[in-house]
């Protein structure tokens, strides 16, 4: 009998009856071979690996995080609710102490979904990790959370949702945005005025291999986590850094993912992207599950590894060492330049957001109240080429009285304005209103 040295929960939801479109990478077949490999390995028979049944998330769970335009029904399907719900099941298993850690192997993914959702961006509608983390905060009273996003694409949705939150450390390790969708995720993107240094982007050059990823983990990510002292570590476990992945240019491997996971030891891992459905996902997922359970992963290897895995070229190694040196300077050694915000000042930014899957153009204008005692009241005005012109006010958990008051005032003012819809997401009272 094989026994896991760490009790591990597994929530597997391959959504065998859902696809974005028949030939889309996000299709029925995506986790078929992963399931084959997991079953053939006999992983579900390992003593201490427990499989859980998914449940759909409720709109209430979604509304803690998202403002869906015009409403939840318009931008979610059952599959999104079940995928997010699978993460809630994983969270319950860990936080109730049934398992030490859990892996939500669910699809569709979520890390490109921002707070305001007009449709599907980068295969994502609902941010599974954020829905899970806010559920955990609400249900289990946890505050300090770190998210380490190891998907090959910048986790711009998660970054957007936690941009202003001083209690969430968001670290994204991804292929350099100059060479890949969504084109963002540079070191200078470091968080809003109330959360400077809480967003950390690590753009790695194409062809980064096992050595590069593990070096970044060891010499930067782990020290950063130690400094932050999170109560909970979440891994957005995208698998498209793999050398077999068809839509990226990285050089990672199943063994590398297993080693990364063993080093990071996330409390909860959530599957994100990864589209080498036959020759990467089965091995990477087996490697992650085994690593979480504390099993020896030295036999986990892609059949074409010896033939096709290319070790990292020396110039890439030098580039990464130099990058890590700069990042350490910024985030560990106090080099990050902070804005000269004054308490009570309202900072503003505008940006354009493109929804590649649904071809929606969104323009956002954001206002945040600079605040030393909470995450700050936030107002987002958003227009789209679909004729939407909405305003959403977010009052964060634990908001101070001044931020609560100004948030409510913004909301009242917007209600009298010419918006198609106005939303209030008041986390202090657990209220969500949309008109």
């Amino acid at each position, binding site marked *: *009998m*094989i026994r896991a040295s760490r009790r591990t929960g597994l*929530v*597997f*939801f*391959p*959504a*065998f*009856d*859902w696809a974005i479109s*028949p*030939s889309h990478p996000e*299709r*029925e*077949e995506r986790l*078929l*071979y992963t*399931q*084959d*490999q997991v*079953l*053939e*390995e*006999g*992983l*579900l*028979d390992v003593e201490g690996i427990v*499989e*859980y*049944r*998914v*449940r*759909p998330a409720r709109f209430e769970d979604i509304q803690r995080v998202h403002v869906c335009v015009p409403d939840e029904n318009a931008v979610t399907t*059952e*599959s999104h609710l*079940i995928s997010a719900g699978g993460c809630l099941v994983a969270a319950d298993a860990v936080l109730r102490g049934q398992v030490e850690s859990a892996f939500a192997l669910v699809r569709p993914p979520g890390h490109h979904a921002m707070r305001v959702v007009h449709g599907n961006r980068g295969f994502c509608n609902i941010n599974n990790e954020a829905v899970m983390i806010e559920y955990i905060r609400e249900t289990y009273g946890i505050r300090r959370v770190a998210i380490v996003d190891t998907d090959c694409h910048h986790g711009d949705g998660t970054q957007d949702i936690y941009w202003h939150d001083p209690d969430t450390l968001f670290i994204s390790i991804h292929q350099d945005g100059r060479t890949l969708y969504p084109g963002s995720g540079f070191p200078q993107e470091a968080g809003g005025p109330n959360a400077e240094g809480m967003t950390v982007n690590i753009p790695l050059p194409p062809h980064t291999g096992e050595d590069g990823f593990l070096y970044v983990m060891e010499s930067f990510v782990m020290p950063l986590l130690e400094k932050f002292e999170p109560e909970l570590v979440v891994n957005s476990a995208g698998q498209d850094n793999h050398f077999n992945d*068809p839509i990226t240019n990285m050089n990672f491997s*199943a063994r590398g993912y297993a080693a990364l996971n063993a080093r990071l030891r996330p409390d909860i891992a959530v599957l994100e992207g990864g589209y080498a459905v*036959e*020759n990467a996902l*089965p*091995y990477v997922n*087996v490697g992650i599950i*085994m690593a979480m359970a504390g*099993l*020896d992963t*030295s*036999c*986990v*290897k*892609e*059949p*074409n590894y010896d033939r096709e895995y290319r070790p990292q070229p020396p110039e890439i190694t030098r580039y990464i060492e130099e990058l890590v040196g700069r990042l350490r300077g910024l985030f560990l050694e106090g080099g990050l330049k902070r804005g000269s915000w004054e308490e009570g000042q309202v900072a503003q930014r505008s940006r354009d957001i493109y929804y590649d899957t649904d071809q929606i153009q969104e323009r956002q204008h954001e206002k945040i109240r600079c605040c030393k005692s909470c995450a700050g009241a936030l107002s987002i005005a958003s227009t789209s080429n679909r004729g939407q012109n909405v305003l959403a006010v977010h009052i964060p958990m634990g908001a101070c009285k001044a931020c609560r008051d100004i948030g409510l005032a913004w909301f009242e003012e917007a209600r009298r304005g010419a918006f198609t819809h106005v939303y209030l997401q008041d986390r202090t009272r657990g209220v969500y209103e949309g008109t």
Partner: protein
Amino acid sequence: MILGLDVGGTQTDAVLIDKGTVVSATKAPTTEDLLGTLRTALENTLGDVEPHRLERMSFSTTMATNAIVEDRLDDTGMIVSAGPGMDPAWFSVGPSYHVVEGSLDHQGFEAKPLDRAAVLEAAASIHKKGIEVLGLVSKFSVRNPTHEFQAADWVGRSFSHVAMGHRVSGALNFPRRIATTYLNAALYGLHQRFSNALLRILTEKNLSGPRYLLKPDGGTIDLEKSVDWPARTAQSGPAASVMGALALDGCKGATLILDVGGTTTDMSVVLDGIPLLKPFGIRLGPYRTLIRSLLTHSVGIGGDSEVRMETDGSLRIGPVRRGKPVALGGPAPTPTDAMIALDLLNVGDRNAARAAMDKVGGSAGLGRIATAERVLETMAESIAASAGAFIYDINARPVYTIHEVLADRRIEPDSVLIIGGPAPQIARYVEKALDLPCRVPHHYGVANAVGAAVARVTSEITLQADTQRGSVVIPESGVEERIDAGFNMEKAIELGRAVLGRQAAGVGADEGDMAISITEKQAFAMIRGYSRTGLNIRLRMGITPGLIPEWERRSRS
């Protein structure tokens, strides 16, 4: 006439059925001599019935189970090839287990050729230990059995028996495939000697009708054709009870079946006449296998369980059984004593039973009648709590499609059927504890033997077609064929029916009367780049557990 015989741990039950009616039922103690027990039970039941009147006989025996539990298996060599994943050394079984290089991927493509020199070397080392039975297993052999065939070709002739992994089941699970293949090989000789001896007894008694053995999935297999699948006959007792319950009652709706025995209570669920199956396969001793089995759960509470009063005034029943009830000369009070004390049962020494109840309740200041009532209430409550957990676990099983999540078909029993010796005495208490209507069928005491008698032959196949690879494989039957891009679900079902028909006939099914059902059916478009390159079809079909037509017809008329 039909004969059914179930060898239990302590008792062997036999019934004789004529035109849908149980005409004789006998019980005899099970002894260490299994063949002797079978012979005695046969003689007792048949009495002076003329042998030619017996059209069919069916046995649920403990040969394989006992051999596994008592570790009396034949020495068996194993040669295993794996590839990436869990370390195959972790799955070592038997006295001579060898891992060789060679691997297939999940689609069945060869990732690394099988190492011929290593296979030969492993075989030599197995021979050197004087071992004559061999098991061959490769990872993903159910997708492509080539490596197992190659190894058999290279070294198989020098062994007296070779078992191959892909034949035991089409399901994916390499460690279980290894264990199941090992058990089939290691039980081969024992089972052959046993079935020959049983055949001699039957021949000696001029019993020449078809003979079957019961399997844990509630189906039967022809005795003479069971030779390659001895492990499939292990642990058939709980299935005998479920099939008996089904035969005696029909089990409409969602029925919870409780088989209350001396030491344990076995529970299972039947939905509209169809018993639920375990998701992977049965566990035999330390071995998790791919052998299909009904979903049953056993709890250590029975009529002969020990009853204790705890210091906090609560009653505890089981899981220990000290022996017979006090009323029958046993050492410790039991629920059976409570039934005797309450005059629910008229056996043994009633005064001794009452004295036993006095002793149990004394410390808590309870009278004998109140104590006896509390014993039976507690017994029913404990069974109800276990049943609740059993049903909860069934409903917590994962599902993998949106359709299943939304359908959310939870199982909630709407009635309870109780069988086993103490069934009528305990029914009223269980009814109260579970708050569900309880029934006790006729012949509740020998339902297991009835189940063995009237269960039909079952057989199952797993078909996997991959038009990109250009092959369809049905591992259980050793079928592997080339297919072209035009292969589709319709053709898969047609092929599956034909192969299943042959396979089922090969284990004793009546070709004219096969109730084939499709248990799993999935098709996935395979996309590489952005274009469709193939179709991946997964199909499971089988003759599922059910009753022989003779019983169904006669009991209906």
